[in-house]
Structure formats: C-alpha cells, structure tokens
C-alpha cells in the first residue's frame, strides 16, 4: 500500500479502507490544519465541538464547554491540577488532545457527585479532613484520589503519598490530603 497525498478532504490513500479518521483538508505537502468536528462524552453527556486539532482536553473543557472545575495549573504535565478520568482512569487533561478522547468516557470533578448533589465519599472526606487551603489543586486532588483508591493504591499512608505524588499542593495541605484519602479508602472498603 502506498501513501499518497491529495488535496481536498483526504490526505492518505486509500481512505476507503477506513484507516483514517480525517478531519482535515490538505494542500499538498503541507496539510493545512482546519477544524475538527468532534463528539465528546463528558459526565455521561454528549457534546459536539468544532475545534482545532491542537486544542487540549483541558482547554476544550474550560474554554469551550465552560466546565471550569478542572483547573489549569502548570499546563505542562507537572502539577496534576487538571486531572480527569478517561474510561475510569486518571489522566492529565493538559497533555491530552481533545481529538484523542473521542469515543471515550470522560469524567470531570463536575461529574463526581450524585444527581441529587450527594457528595462522593472522597469529596466528603476532603471537607471533613480540611484537606485544602486555597482549593485550587483540590479538584485534581479529588479526581486523583478517587482513582487511587479504585486502583488499590491507598493501602497505607506511604502508598497514598507515593500514588498521590502527581498532585502538587502549593499550600502544603499534604497531611490532611493523606488523611482524607485514608478515610475515604476505609469508608469505601467497608
């Protein structure tokens, strides 16, 4: 099979094989980026978006869908403030392209509480243990903690500290964060 570059709506031959999800037009050797039509499933709801390929999931959530619970901290994969779940696993929205998660289930902090507003056990434990100060890292901490417990990596304080290391807290609320994760893990186990 040879690759050929076309102008028009497809870049790679043969598109009829269905090998590519191609949302772009091209103009010869330098395909020009255009917008993609995407459908994202976020907190169980379908959202249609027209975005440039370079838009991250984080920017799509915050700037396009106005789901601002997910925070932008470093925007380079070093702080964990943008932690969301994709197919139930915690990932960083700042290093994920929105286009990449089409067809996958995305959960943000807004999707954690029950329909009636009942808090998730981790959210309740963060309140009870006062596991924050300024609160900016908290949505990421909570999303990370929910997954940490689900993964089975909250068995001891040492393990919690290791597996929550990807979420930085500039206020230094770490002792209370560990206490909240420990409490929620115990509650969810019983």
């Amino acid at each position, binding site marked *: *099979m040879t690759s050929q570059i076309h102008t028009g709506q497809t870049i790679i031959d043969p598109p009829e094989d269905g090998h590519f999800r191609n949302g772009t037009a091209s103009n010869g*050797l330098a395909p020009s980026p255009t917008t993609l039509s995407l459908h994202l499933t976020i907190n169980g709801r379908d959202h249609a978006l027209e975005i440039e390929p370079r838009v991250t999931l984080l920017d799509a959530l915050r700037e396009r869908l106005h789901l601002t619970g997910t925070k932008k901290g470093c925007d380079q994969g070093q702080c964990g403030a943008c932690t969301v779940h994709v197919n139930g696993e915690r990932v960083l929205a700042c290093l994920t392209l929105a286009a990449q998660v089409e067809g996958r289930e995305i959960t943000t902090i807004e999707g954690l509480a029950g329909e009636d507003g009942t808090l998730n056990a981790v959210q309740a434990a963060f309140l009870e243990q006062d596991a924050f100060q300024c609160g900016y890292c908290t949505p990421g901490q909570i999303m990370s903690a929910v997954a940490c417990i689900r993964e089975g990596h909250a068995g001891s304080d040492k393990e919690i500290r290791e597996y929550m290391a990807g979420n930085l807290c500039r206020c230094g609320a770490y002792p209370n964060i560990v206490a909240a994760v420990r409490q929620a893990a115990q509650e969810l186990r019983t």
Partner: protein
Amino acid sequence: MRDFSYLRADSIEAARNAAALPGAMLLAGGTTLVDLAKCGVAEPATVIDISHIEGLSAIDVTADRAIIGALARMSHIADNPQVKSLFPAVSEALWQAASAQLRNMATIGGNLMQRTRCPYFRDPANFHACNKRAPGSGCSAIGGVTRGHAVLGVSEACIATYPGDLAVALVAFDAEVDLGERKLKVEDFFLAPGATAEQEHDIRPGEVITAIEIPGSAAARRSTYIKVRDRQSYEFAAASAAVGLELEGDGRTIRDIRVALGGVATKPWRARAVEDALKGKALDGDIVRKASELAMEGAVHHGANQYKIALAPRVIARAILKLGETA
C-alpha cells in the same frame, strides 16, 4: 503550540503509511509530544494518532520472555502480576517513573521515544544553541547549569541526559524493540550523541514500534531498580541502577549479573565492566563496591554534575547488595 493536521490511524499499516509523510509525528499517550509541542520543540505538520489501534496493548508474559505491545500503558505493565514476579526491575522502574496520571497515559512504545529533559533543549525561546534541536547550533548546557547533565556517553555536541527509567531495565535484560520489518536491541535503538545529537533513536521514517520483547532469565527474576533523586517521588533520577543477579548453588558466587544505569548517561547505559568484574566472584560488600566504580570509566563531568560520578557506583552497589540479601 503551532497547529497541525490530525489523522487517526486504525491499523499498523495505516500508521506506517502516515508516519512516512513529511512532518508527521506519531501520537500515542501524548505525554512527550504534546508537552514538546507546547514548548515549541516539536512542530509536527501532521499528528498521527495511533492510540485507537486495537490489539497493540497486550502484555504476554511467560518464564521465557515477555512480549509487551507498543500501546500497553506504563501503569498496566507495572501492576501486571507476572511482570512483577518474573521481571521485578521492569515493574519497579515503571512505578517509580513519572506520576500515576502520566503512567496511565504513556505507552511503552512512546516511553522509548521520550526525549531528554535538558532544560536548554526544552527552551528554544531563550536558548538558540542546541545541537539536538538545531544541528550545528552549539550546546547551551556546556558552560551552563549542568547539575542534571550526563557524565557518560557525552560528546562536545551534547551532554543531555537520557531521562527514562524503563529503558534502563530493558537494556539490562537484553530486551529488543520490534519495528515490524526489523528488530533491534533496545541498547542499539538508543544512540549516544556523538556529532549527531539530533539522532536519538535508530528509527526510520515510516517505522512504527509494535512491541518490546524481554528474554526471561534467572537474573531478570531476581532483579531490582533503585532510583535516587532530589525528591522521593515524581522526579527524574539523579542516578539509578537496574540490576539482576544469579548466584551459583553455593549461594554466594555470582554466576550472572546485569547492571544498567540511568540518570547519568546520554542513553540507557549498560555497565558491562562491572558485570565482567563480578562474574565468578563472591558476593561480598567490598568486592561489589570496588567493581561498581568501574561503571564510571571514561566519565566526563561539567562542574555541577560531578557528584554523579561518586553517586552512581554507590547506587549500583546498593542494588547488588540488596539483591544479595533477598535470597
């Protein structure tokens, strides 16, 4: 970040075809590519998303060998019970790398394509000179702040440290990378800078990593990965060692030993001089510590990274002696 075209490949063949396009770069977990695109280091014309290709993420482990699909993610390999029991150094290298979120994203194929964390490489806006980014432009690190830079495998063109952990364990146990048309040793897949710092991997346009294969061995079964760093977690290695050990029936003579280093070299670094010095010798603290120093033969420092020359042999010796205690 410069914009790009986005293509989603749903088969290896499609990915190979697309990877040959000018300016095309493959996207798997995105933890390197999206990061470097934001820094202005990577400027793909087209991003080929291979993360939706099915059948490339299997983790198939027997006592003879592990075959790990290129799209298997770091977290899944680290937690795999057979990897933990038959290749403990591989699991330990993985869970001590990055963070839980990044390990859920990053694939084993992408992990091999991880670029250096040299701050000069990552900052084109402030540092024009970088032979890795712009061949022939010079090296901003030489004469700069070098605390994290390499002491082994360096050249006048580049002293950037290979930052990864997994590949260090892979090199210790003679793992191979499967590129479809050809297979090569992971050790040979990584290239020291020499005069061509821009070439970090032996991979050609149109090639796609499909799997990693690790031969099983007694040394792999009795192995560990020790990582020393500035903070206890979520940090790159100041020095790390992947070590495997097999003893004779007497329980103290070394039959086989594997030693590879991270955090101190321009590529995942196999320390064969240490291995050769210890094979057939008794597992003894003084002998091990003396042999471990051989790993630093030919080391070149640039000031602030001199401490690595003292640190790395101690990490190796600690790893070997720790394995000796876990008979």
